[in-house]
């Protein structure tokens, strides 16, 4: 098997037994990136040679989403406004990865400021799905997902505010996890929606996901939302046994608009787990249908505030109009932001500003925060009757490039099954569970209680051991 098609645990076994060196493995992966990236555009910058800064147990080639800071390396959030920005410090997850021995291969493409579900809003051009280059890889971490699916990296980090890890993992046939809010430090992550954002792992299989989560999880005093509870050894959760576990199936996630092939694959996956000894029960999450509306109020409100810092004063882009419009400094702010942000970023900044503005705060923002409470209570109630909830990750497989760009609302609705986990702060994982008739991957989403990542990994691992999907690779 090609090195670039292998998982990290296979490569690590190869290194241990002397079959391959970490340098050789990294150069094979970099070679693959050079061979295919012109077609995927998954990676927007890469190194000439992978360097392993520190010795550690996991010398694995990894790519980082373009919103994770690395000291002195260009970090641009897929936006023109951060043109030339080189952070003076590294993210906590980067420090942890380097300490584990990992080598950074490059930077993954993303929707501008993570605003999107298709990686089409990137200032660096759209990324393409390795299973069908005419289709999107999902988003906003589409570059991370496509890179792992195409063998351009063994691992990738992404971020998930409303599904931005799980939906692209589903579209690209890889494993992607959004950990519990507070599980992974966001120090050094460029913020989008601060009550929702979480960094998480993309890998080719569940065992790798446990390994990478173990490296990046944990308390960090530099992130006040980071939670100070011990990190379990997630690799201990890789047990092929679901007996005694109860899984809830929410009827609100099997609705009109879900593609028949997706519904079929997910229902087959539920059967596999049932046959393996799990108990399957119906559960109800009645406020699901309000989640998208809540999300696009809360997330844009937070984004409009977080993105106020990009104003041409300190770093990145600075532009001034030819003729005086208001005052020199206000003209500079307004022109820099007009030229630096793309249309979707402008749309979300304006929407967020609108829902927070005088006279509309109570009607939109406060109301959305209250409905968010109801959505969270849905999950609290459901988890009294089950250990995990199973659903499709997305209602469809990967859609065509350009298919949804003219209609922002239809793009937003593609996140309908992933948004609730962010609003409730719970962990969720997407794993491959089959293909549609066009040979596009389908994802199974597993959700669990806060800090129950071990349950997610156990269920995902047991399913994976019983099915062949994770062994399939896109042909490029």
């Amino acid at each position: 098997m090609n090195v670039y098609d292998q998982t990290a645990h296979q490569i690590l076994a190869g290194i241990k037994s002397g079959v391959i060196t970490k340098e050789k493995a990294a150069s094979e992966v970099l070679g693959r990136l050079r061979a295919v990236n012109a077609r995927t555009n998954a990676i927007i910058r890469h190194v000439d040679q992978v360097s392993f800064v520190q010795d550690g147990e996991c010398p694995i080639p990894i790519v980082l989403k373009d919103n994770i800071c690395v000291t002195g390396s260009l970090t641009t959030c897929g936006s023109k406004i951060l043109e030339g920005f080189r952070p003076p410090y590294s993210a906590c997850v980067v420090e942890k990865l380097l300490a584990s021995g990992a080598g950074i291969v490059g930077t993954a493409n993303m929707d501008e400021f993570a605003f999107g579900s298709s990686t089409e809003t990137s200032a660096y051009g759209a990324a393409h799905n390795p299973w069908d280059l005419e289709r999107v890889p999902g988003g906003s971490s589409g570059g991370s997902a496509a890179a792992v699916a195409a063998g351009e990296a063994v691992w990738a980090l992404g971020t998930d505010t409303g599904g931005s890890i799980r939906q692209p993992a589903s579209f690209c046939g890889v494993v992607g996890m959004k950990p519990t809010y507070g599980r992974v430090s966001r120090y050094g992550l460029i913020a989008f929606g601060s009550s929702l954002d979480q960094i998480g792992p993309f890998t080719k299989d569940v065992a790798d996901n446990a390994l990478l989560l173990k490296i990046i999880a944990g308390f960090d005093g530099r992130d006040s939302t980071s939670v100070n509870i011990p990190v379990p050894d997630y690799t201990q959760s890789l047990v092929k046994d679901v007996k005694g576990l109860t899984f809830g199936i929410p009827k609100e996630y099997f609705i009109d608009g879900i593609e028949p092939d997706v519904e079929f694959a997910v229902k087959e996956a539920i059967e596999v787990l049932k046959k393996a000894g799990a108990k399957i029960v119906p559960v109800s999450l009645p406020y699901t249908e309000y989640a998208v509306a809540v999300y696009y109020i809360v997330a844009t409100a937070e984004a409009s505030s977080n993105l106020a810092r990009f104003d041409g004063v300190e770093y990145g882009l600075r532009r001034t109009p030819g003729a005086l419009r208001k005052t020199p400094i206000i003209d500079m702010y307004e022109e820099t932001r007009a030229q630096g942000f793309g249309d979707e970023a402008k749309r979300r900044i304006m929407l967020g500003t609108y829902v927070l503005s005088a006279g509309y705060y109570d009607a939109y923002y406060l109301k959305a925060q209250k409905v968010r409470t109801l959505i969270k209570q849905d999950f609290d109630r459901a988890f009294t009757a089950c250990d995990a909830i199973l659903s499709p990750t997305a209602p469809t497989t990967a859609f065509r490039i350009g298919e949804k760009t003219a209609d922002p609302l239809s793009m937003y609705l593609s996140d309908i099954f992933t948004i609730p986990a962010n609003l409730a702060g719970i962990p969720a994982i997407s794993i491959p569970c089959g293909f549609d008739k066009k040979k596009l991957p389908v994802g199974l989403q597993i959700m669990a209680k806060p800090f129950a990542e071990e349950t997610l990994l156990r269920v995902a691992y047991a399913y994976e051991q019983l099915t062949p999907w994770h062994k399939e690779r896109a042909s490029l």
Partner: protein
Amino acid sequence: MVDIKIVQYIGGLSRLHIENDKASGFAKNLEDILQYAQKLDTLDVSNVKPTSHVLNVENVFRDDVVTPSLTQEEALAFAIEKHNGHYKVPKVIE
């Protein structure tokens, strides 16, 4: 109803210069999304508390000790324009 005038007003609050030829497109997008959001109005939430943080975590403080941080030089290393150890911007006060 979100019209061009409202878009220009929100653009101003957001410090975004919106060209006139783009304002009507944005007005339609914002109107569509806000219309969609009105489905929340069908719910009675008068007795529901708002959620701004999903975990029951409050008053997170660290010990008040000085630790190494960026030097002025490091912080300004990638400044767009600088002068005497400060960021330089266009004239603010006439």
